[in-house]
């Protein structure tokens, strides 16, 4: 059986890059970066904390709460990373709480010693 294809995902906020299989959510792949500051909430599209905007590339998405992703936002490329799967290499930008978490913890990691 052929393995699921694996795509490269770039996080614009931090210039990080990670590998994500087509059967793995963008959040699931990001969690495997294994660093602090990946804001993992419900993993079910309900709580809204893993909101990102897809800036380049294609995804397929499962249903997400309209409290957090409006129809207009969805059309503009906003998704919850826990509900979106890659269908090509991607560039994403974390927004709102996801951006605050991911940028704050990166700053801590990179601070001079």
């Amino acid at each position, binding site marked *: 059986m052929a393995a699921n294809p694996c795509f490269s995902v770039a996080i614009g906020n931090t210039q990080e890059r990670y590998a994500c299989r087509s059967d793995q959510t963008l959040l699931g792949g990001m969690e495997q970066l294994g660093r602090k500051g990946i*804001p*993992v*909430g*419900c*993993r*079910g*599209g*309900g*709580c809204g*904390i893993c909101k990102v905007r897809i800036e380049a590339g294609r995804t397929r998405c*499962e*249903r*997400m*709460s*309209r*409290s957090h992703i409006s129809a207009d936002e969805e059309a503009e490329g906003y998704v919850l990373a826990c509900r979106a799967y890659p269908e090509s290499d991607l560039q994403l930008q974390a927004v709102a709480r996801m951006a605050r978490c991911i940028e704050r913890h990166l700053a801590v990691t990179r601070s001079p010693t």
Partner: protein
Amino acid sequence: MALTGVLRPGHVQLRVLDLEAALKHYRDVLGLIETARDAQGRIYFKAWDEHDHHSVVLREADTAGMDFMGFRVDSPATLDKLAADLKASGLATDMQWIAAGEHLRTGKRFRFTVPTGHAIELFAEKEKVGNGMPYENPEISPDDLKGMAPSRFDHCLLYGDDLDGTVKVFTEVLGFNLAESVVAGPERMAIAAFLTCSTKPHDIAFIRHPEKNKFHHASFLLDNWGEVLKAADIITKKRVSLDIGPTRHGITRGETIYFFDPSGNRNEVFSGGYVFYPDKPPLTWTDDELGRAIFYHDRKLNENFLSVVT
């Protein structure tokens, strides 16, 4: 009868994004028993040791969260009296009667919104369908239980802004007691309230939060710590989204694990906790000891546990 007025949590209606995925979770993983589906497509469940027709209702929607939580009262007369008391109190809004049968096999319900924005219901009648065992010379559990198989729906924890107003509705109008609270800062502002109408440490709880009408979790009762650990095994085996645990709460002393349904609504299964009698002095926790109050073992606050809601 010593326990009168509001008897217990009777039901919670939750919104789910994908009904089929939710069905698999609540029936096969959590282990509730499906009892009905209605013309709107809602699915009804009960836990095995509940005698009423249902305690959990799932409704497919484009948002997750809680539609309402309902409490069973001891009689139709009490239902009418409490409805009148709520109207007279001026503390609740959006008050309305929901016709008998709107929830299958359930009498009329009185629905109202508390100051934290949550819709709460009272009802006096729901058909008894039993727990799968006879009322004379029963066994101790029915056959063919699935998943974690909690014995009952126990309580909800809800987030909202006007905590003081909501506590007032429950204590001054509905006859609940404050079992435990959390206070913050030198002014000792209440930030959490654990309210009981029974001999449990809580039947409903609220946490102060800037947004109205948020849902933190619905909780289900297991027998013992071993069953909580077994639930943890099931969470991994079934690849359920884990929140936190297994651990113990300082508040209520419950042994617990938290996880999410496929739409992101948090569930808890727990065991233990103390017995609350109405003359028991309330317990107060201060925010500088909040880590231990919430997670007694690792004594650390967890941002996701505190801030992820639907």
